[in-house]
């Protein structure tokens, strides 16, 4: 899609662009590149870059507690450096001292299925796990253990001695048995192909029509029908 003409409608389009960029920046866990934003918003990278610079200046001018910054080739929100003491207090408070459910599930997959690549883990969890994996590596619970032989030679991850120590285990053999609930090989295959069945759909006996879901993006709709 090309840039819209500078017509009377441009203000609305500008507003929509700015709001959509803010929404995408809010939900991203890693810095999001100008190129990806441009693709998602269907405008040129130059325009996105200008928009982000403008937004960052606006947050600065309105004295927000967060900033929009460009790091590692992408844009992301982060807390204003001034306010680090509050964030530290929050972190130390212990409220965030537990692994999030997302992190725990990711760690569990690595523990039981290692070695695993990030792509394989992401396929099972149905979400990008880069941020979570970085946390787990930084905490020393998982580490690189080798490379896939296949094309791309993806980095493979496994759990560390620290992980065993923290859980009070001598070896991986002492992990609780999965027992009767282990899904069969076919399920793994389906999962690893990204065809993660929605567990609740197992009970679905109803048509997909009745609640205005039609407005959801095609991608989401596809997920549902699988």
């Amino acid at each position, binding site marked *: 899609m090309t840039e819209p003409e500078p017509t009377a409608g441009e203000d609305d389009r500008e507003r929509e662009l700015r709001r959509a960029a803010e929404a995408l920046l*809010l939900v991203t866990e890693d810095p999001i590149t100008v190129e990806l934003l441009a693709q998602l918003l269907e405008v040129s990278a130059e325009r996105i870059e200008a928009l982000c610079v403008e937004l960052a200046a606006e947050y600065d001018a309105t004295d927000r507690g967060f900033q929009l910054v460009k790091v590692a080739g992408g844009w992301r929100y982060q807390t204003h450096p001034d306010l680090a003491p509050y964030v530290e207090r929050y*972190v130390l408070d212990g409220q965030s*001292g537990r692994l999030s459910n997302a992190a725990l*599930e990711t760690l569990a997959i690595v523990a039981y299925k290692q070695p695993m690549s990030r792509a394989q883990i992401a396929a099972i969890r149905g979400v990008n796990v880069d941020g979570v994996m970085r946390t787990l590596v930084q905490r020393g619970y998982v580490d690189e253990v080798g490379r896939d032989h296949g094309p791309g030679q993806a980095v493979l991850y496994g759990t560390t001695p620290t992980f065993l120590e923290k*859980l*009070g285990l001598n070896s991986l053999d002492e*992990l609780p048995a999965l027992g009767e*609930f282990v899904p069969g090989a076919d399920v793994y295959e389906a999962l690893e192909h990204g065809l993660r069945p929605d567990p609740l759909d197992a009970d679905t006996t109803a048509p997909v029509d009745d609640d205005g879901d039609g407005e959801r993006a095609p991608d989401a709709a596809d997920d549902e029908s699988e």
Partner: protein
Amino acid sequence: MAVDVETPVFQGPFDLLLHLILQDQVDLYEVRLSDIVDAYLAQLERLEQMDLELATEFLLIAATLIELKSKRLLPDDGDVDLDDELALWEERDLLLSRLVECKTFKDAAVAMATIANEAGRSYPRTAGVDQQFLGLLPDMLATTTPDQLRDAFLRAVEPKPVPRVHIDHIHQIRVTVTDAVAELLDELPRIGRATFAELTADLVERLEVVVRFLAVLELYKQGWIDLQQVNSLGSLTVVWTGRPDDDELDLEDLAFVDAYDG
């Protein structure tokens, strides 16, 4: 799983009853038997691609419908027993209040779906704290047990609930559909046609009648017999039509029905 979007798929006997009564505007006791049979067979056919738990639920639908309908089909001995009459009304009131309750929560669920869909349009921020602060975090596994790790794994990979067959409602059945079918196969070719009342004249217990009725439905489903009912609420005539094209009786189907023998 394939989901048919054109016609409703029923989740339980109440679902089907509600549908029959409300959507179709029919009177369960006036609806022609063939309609009930068709609905039953159509549902059962669609169940073949679904899981065992669902199939069980649908057999429960069928059983419920057949039981209700069979009350009307039982030979009327003329004398109305007041106790029976009262019991029937009581049963109806119970069913009525359950249907009303079921309908209430069905409608509440629709409203909740709307709320959830609206809420689903917003995505929360989950990025957490910046990496620079992570070093401050205490041991994040301190409160985690190996069992929690296992649960997390199962949560991550579990694609669907483990199917389980619900058999509480059928523990009383002592006669099997297979037996009843065998008896009918022995008798019907000789006499050609008979009313359902005649076919059940020697039976004492209501359950036996219900099972005999199931057997009739099975034979009808597989094309061995024809069913005739001239008037609504009139007597049901069973007509022997002989072997269908594939002349083997599918005993697997019968075994399926009889799996509730428990």
